[in-house]
């Protein structure tokens, strides 16, 4: 990972420690210190807020800026995250997806990415470590061509801490694919400009609409870059979305990120049993590729969106986007909220819900492997005593050790 980012020749890299992105930054730091990554300034900042701010300054001054964060860190820098997008600065940030507390939880889900959904950043989701690495190369190119910041989302621990062989692209190929950064606006004493003006009602809407248009431009550019990437590196990565065995599929599972692998295995298994199921993995979540999604799901009758986040009091976030993309199609759409806070998503669970979907047993919104006994017990407690205490701790008390339950309901 770090190796690939390094080959993108980032000029200013900074970050604040937070699992699970830390080791990527540590590795880059080591390369800078060792002199293998040069020229590059590696800055140990005092907070994520500063990390993004330093990136903003560096990018505005014409440097290729990179940082990484996760979870609470993303939220702590959120003001600057919006600012980077508003200023149109092509910063690339790795988001090692992780749940957001409370209760504090360091494991993987997509709550953090969804919290940044409306920041104006482009959000790309990686299915594998290889894709995560490759997406960074594409991200820098994409960001700098559009003057927009790009967030590469990869599942915390599941990918970031998985040890698997990936091939690191040749420096020469990366340089050819990713030319030196040519900023659209830069702080230059010889051609002074003011960046970051206060914009009132008379122009704010236009500024926002222009940002929107640039994101829509990305819908054109991303596929083109994917093709170019494939021809140069011989790997198919990036793009807007990937369909797997969807032709003739009546049931299609839609998801983001690393869970797609497990789902594909489940789909293969069901195919062997004769089910007509397929998978659509969405790589580009923002901008959202409505047309491609509609086309990909055109023949399906049932769509099951498996997502690792949800909007409390509403439901699935990705589901809502898929629903509006397919609003005019005769599809029954099911939301499956899974893997929250690092709960494992097993092939068995996936197969079960594909089966349920096929048998019309799947409700509109499902929380995968939800332990209803615990929920009910806690609800009873809350009804019986006023000072029922914090639910999280009560639930843990019920469960005893955590690890034994990672595997989901037995």
């Amino acid at each position, binding site marked *: 990972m770090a190796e690939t980012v390094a080959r993108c020749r980032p000029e200013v890299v900074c970050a604040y420690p937070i699992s699970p992105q830390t080791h990527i930054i540590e590795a880059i730091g080591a390369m800078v210190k060792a002199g293998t990554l040069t020229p590059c300034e590696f800055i140990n900042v005092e907070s994520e807020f500063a990390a993004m701010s330093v990136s903003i300054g560096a990018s505005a001054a014409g440097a290729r800026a990179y940082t990484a964060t996760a979870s609470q860190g993303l939220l702590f820098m959120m003001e600057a995250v919006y600012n980077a997008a508003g*200023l*149109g600065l092509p910063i690339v940030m790795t988001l090692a997806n992780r749940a957001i507390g409370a209760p504090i939880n360091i494991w993987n889900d997509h709550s953090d990415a969804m919290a940044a959904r409306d920041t104006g950043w482009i959000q790309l989701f990686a299915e594998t470590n290889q894709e995560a690495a490759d997406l960074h190369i594409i991200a820098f190119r994409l960001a700098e061509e559009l003057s927009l910041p790009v967030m590469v989302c990869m599942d915390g621990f599941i990918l970031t801490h998985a040890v698997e062989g990936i091939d690191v692209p040749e420096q020469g190929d990366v340089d050819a694919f990713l030319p030196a950064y040519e900023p*659209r606006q830069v702080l230059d004493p010889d051609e*002074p400009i*003011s*960046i970051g003006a206060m914009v009132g009602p008379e*122009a704010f809407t236009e500024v926002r609409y*222009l940002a929107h248009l640039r994101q829509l431009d990305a819908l054109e550019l991303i596929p083109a870059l994917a093709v170019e990437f494939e021809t140069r590196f011989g790997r198919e990565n990036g793009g807007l979305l990937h369909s797997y065995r969807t032709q003739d599929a009546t049931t299609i599972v839609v998801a983001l990120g690393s869970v797609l692998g497990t789902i594909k295995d489940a789909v293969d298994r069901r195919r062997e049993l004769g089910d007509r199921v397929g998978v659509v993995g969405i790589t580009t979540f923002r901008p959202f590729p409505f047309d491609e999604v509609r086309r990909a799901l055109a023949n399906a009758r049932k769509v099951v969106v498996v997502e690792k986040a949800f909007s409390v009091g509403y439901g699935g976030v990705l589901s809502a986007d898929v629903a509006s993309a397919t609003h005019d199609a005769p599809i029954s759409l099911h939301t499956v909220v899974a893997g929250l806070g690092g709960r494992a998503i097993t092939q068995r669970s996936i197969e079960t819900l594909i089966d349920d979907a096929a048998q019309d047993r799947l409700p509109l919104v499902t929380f995968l492997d939800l332990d209803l006994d615990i929920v009910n017990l806690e609800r009873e407690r809350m009804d019986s005593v006023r000072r029922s205490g914090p639910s999280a701790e009560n639930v843990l008390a019920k469960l005893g050790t955590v690890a034994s339950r990672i595997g989901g309901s037995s």
Partner: protein
Amino acid sequence: MTKLPFAITLEVGSSHANHTGSWRVERPVYVDRLPPCNNACPAGENIQQWLYDAESGSYETAWRQLVVDNPFPAVMGRICYRPCESACNRAQLDEAVGINSIERFLGDLAIERGWSLPSPGVDTGKRVLVVGAGPSGLSVAYHLRRLGHRVQLVDANDKLGGMMRFGIPAYRLPRDILDAEIARIVDLGIDVQLNHTVHDIELERRSGGFDAVYLGVGAQLARRVSIPSGDSARILDAVSYLHQVADDNPPLLGRRVVVYGGGDTALDAARTARRLDASDAVIVYRRNREQMPAHEEELEEALKEGITVRWLSTINHFDGERLVIEKMRLNEKGFPEPTGEFEELGADAVVLALGQDSDLSLLEHVPDIAIDDGVVGISPAMMATKSGIFAGGDAVPSERTATIAIGHGKRAARGIDAFLAGLDAAELPRHKLAEFEHLNTWYYSDAERTRRPELEIARRQDNFAEIVGGLTEENALFEARRCLSCGNCFECDNCFGVCPDNAVFKIDGPRHYEINYDFCKGCGICVSECPCGAIEMVPEEI
């Protein structure tokens, strides 16, 4: 159309489109205020201006500015009683600027370097008779010449200068200085006629065919009182005494000289006697020190030189050996009354310094002239008669100093010029006075006044060497730079620097700065921070 990202990124200079001048309800305006020194100068000198030139070391420019109004810098730099310094705003800060000493420095430098006065104006063909070659006569002659009129200058004495020569002792005004500055004036082409006493002005005017006349006859007649005395008693008046001294045949007065009177002349007489044969010189004055008309600093010098004063005393009798004086006391009105107490002093001579009168006998045949209280009544333009007789100096109602006389000469010249052109002399408009409150004195560094060197007492006996020395060039420059330039811009750049809206611009020209009212919001900081009060706020016209 800019290629920059819309709205969030802006090009420099774009704010010039926003004319914040519309916020303004008051506008700053540059003004010239009348500096108190100029205001107080009887000779009407533009002191602030010549100090401004002197500050930059342009001494000749300064001197030329000075002689526009006063042809006697070296003389005035010695004998002027300096009303300018009494008025100086700097006195309220630390001490008045030593204007007089700088004037003298410039005057002496001019003599040393032989700078000549501005050449006469184009000949008008008019001829003016000036009677009396004292300060006012010489001044009027000078100014008339510059206006292009011919001048005939007559004086009863054998030398020019009037009281400057025959009244003021050499230790206050060395003769070479006086001669040099007079010569410069005469060189402008003035017909001088000495040893000529005018008895009938009308006759003189007709015979000479003069278009106008100026009377600068001064006040030469000493007032006398009859002092009961023996025949041997040696009694003479100060005017003739000083005159004889000036003529280098001083009368012998003996060891003990008593001077009767309380004016500057009394002091001059006493100090002169002290320098001649008198080992003790006593002044007898009927009032007290506060009421003494003589200038304080002159008295100080006299006392330093060992002169004693008998306050509240009148001379009752003098027999040539012993002088009897009667003590006086002040009544509730402040007038001296006899006490009946007497005292004796030893005295060889008594010098009367009881004031002078003008000899106006030459006016007897002039019809419409107003002589009141022994002096000639005049208009603001110094005109005594419609027929074109003007007068000034000690012969007209005013305080009697050389500086005032010089001012009279300048004013009269203007009046005469107008008369000859058949016009009324126009009063020149005056700026508002620059008062201490107008200044922001923070910006002036603290600077003690420089003193002129003085001859120590021991070396003042039995000679007429000049007491007060001049300033070195460095000191003069230093002193000039103590000037606050009240009410007149001296280019300190404060307004240019302190404008929060960059609305002040530097320009070439007398004004130095200009305000761009497109951007001036009228905050008034430039006015508050102008050291010399040369900017004021005026309400916007609505």
